[in-house]
């Protein structure tokens, strides 16, 4: 059945210049606007109010490292060792939800079983190189957070492969890896420049300003599996007999 490495779906050739809106669909009706506004006023949406930072960075498909994307993380801290992030393709109000990333401290990561660790990536390079930025927040303010993040590990599942032109979320979730300073981990200069222009920043200058952020003393080699093994991961879906409680469907 479907896999995360399928060809572009629904006849889309590419994202830019295709002329078709992504996703397809009719514009919002006034009726729906009213329902939504009413709901927003009456419902408390508490988990949304806990989201405390926006990070912009880049990610690479584990099963096809020629494909790199810009990411916008909106993160909630559950405790000092754990962040949960909703990931979007842009920071606009119509940003498309493309996945979820969980971020854990080195302490939590070291306690994971090895089979689990191979699904996670390190963040040291992404922080030190200036690729991860918190838009509009002065570097000096965010520095303690960057020091934490430099020692952290992430697990990022992408559920909407917009870069291959998918007009709707198609296929199985794709595991993502983080940018690294070597080989296929290096993000394309064009991708970085586009981001830099948007926020009027210079990634190289940010990198220089982060020289004092300590490199982790050790990066667990089970993370960033591709660097050691030249292998990535993909998810397949197989039809099976469902364990039932009543007939289905």
């Amino acid at each position: 059945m479907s896999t995360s490495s399928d060809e572009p779906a629904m006849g889309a050739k590419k994202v830019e210049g295709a002329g078709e809106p992504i996703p397809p669909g009719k514009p919002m009706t006034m009726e729906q606007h009213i329902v939504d506004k009413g709901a927003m006023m009456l419902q408390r949406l508490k988990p949304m109010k806990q989201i405390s930072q926006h990070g912009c960075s880049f990610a690479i498909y584990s099963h096809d490292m020629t494909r790199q994307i810009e990411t916008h993380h909106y993160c909630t801290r559950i405790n000092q060792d754990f962040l949960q992030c909703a990931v979007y393709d842009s920071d606009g109000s119509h940003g498309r939800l493309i996945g979820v990333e969980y971020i854990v401290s080195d302490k939590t990561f070291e306690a994971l079983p090895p089979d689990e660790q191979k699904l996670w990536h390190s963040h040291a390079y992404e922080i030190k190189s200036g690729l991860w930025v918190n838009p509009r927040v002065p570097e000096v303010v965010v520095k303690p957070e960057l020091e934490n993040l430099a020692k952290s590990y992430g697990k990022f599942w992408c559920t909407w492969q917009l870069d291959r032109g998918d007009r709707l979320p198609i296929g199985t979730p794709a595991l993502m890896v983080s940018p690294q300073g070597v080989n296929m981990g290096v993000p394309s200069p064009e991708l970085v420049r586009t981001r830099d222009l948007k926020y009027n920043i210079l990634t190289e200058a940010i990198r220089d300003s982060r020289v004092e952020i300590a490199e982790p003393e050790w990066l667990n080699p089970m993370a960033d599996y591709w660097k050691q093994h030249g292998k990535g991961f993909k998810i397949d879906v197989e039809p099976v007999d469902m364990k039932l409680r009543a007939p289905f469907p």
Partner: protein
Amino acid sequence: MSQHPEVPGDPTATTTSLLEKATASIQRFGPISHIHQHLCAFHFYSHDMTRQVEAHHFCGHLNEEVRQCLIYNSPEPDARLIGIEYIVTETLFDMLPDEEKPMWHSHDYEVKGGYLFMPGIPGPVERQDMEKVAKTYGKTIHFWQVDRGDNLPLGIPQIMFALTREGQLYDELAQDVERRYKVSFAAEKEKRKDIEGPEMGRHPLANGAGKGLQTVLKEVDVKPPSGTTPRVFV
């Protein structure tokens, strides 16, 4: 088992929480500010109906026909982000490639059965939206199996389905939600009798085409740029 396992780790340090108050006040959370709806329902694993999860959807519309939702295990401030759901109209669902359709589930029974609801929303307003949702299809992926007590998001993503008929949902789970949200599924069911599902009826390829679905992790060669095979990765 509790569906709200304690995440291991130290309490958030004061410096960290102050810093995050600062970033939250400086930054704009564009796509998050667009989330304006809380829906509560149940999901079960697409390979195992006996594992059922209370799912709190926080949704935003990308247009009239597409919603994208963050799924949490509770509506409280310390809720765990456990998954994602995309909801599309029947028209868009029909455009999906056939091999994609089994990963999507129908919403008609969840609505008609009274199980899908909007906490805190008056009946008539809720009803307006329920009439629409009943005709849609959803694709739900969970990343965190809180129902088996995982205190961290372990393993690979799971495709989730929704209720499609009587007798699937556990009474204890149903009653617990009814009590906490002061709703009655039976009463709602009665009120929603006349709500209609998809125009063309439930698509036979939706809901796993009638089968269970199981996700499997595969190791693959990293695809090198322009056909070269790098020998050294570090």
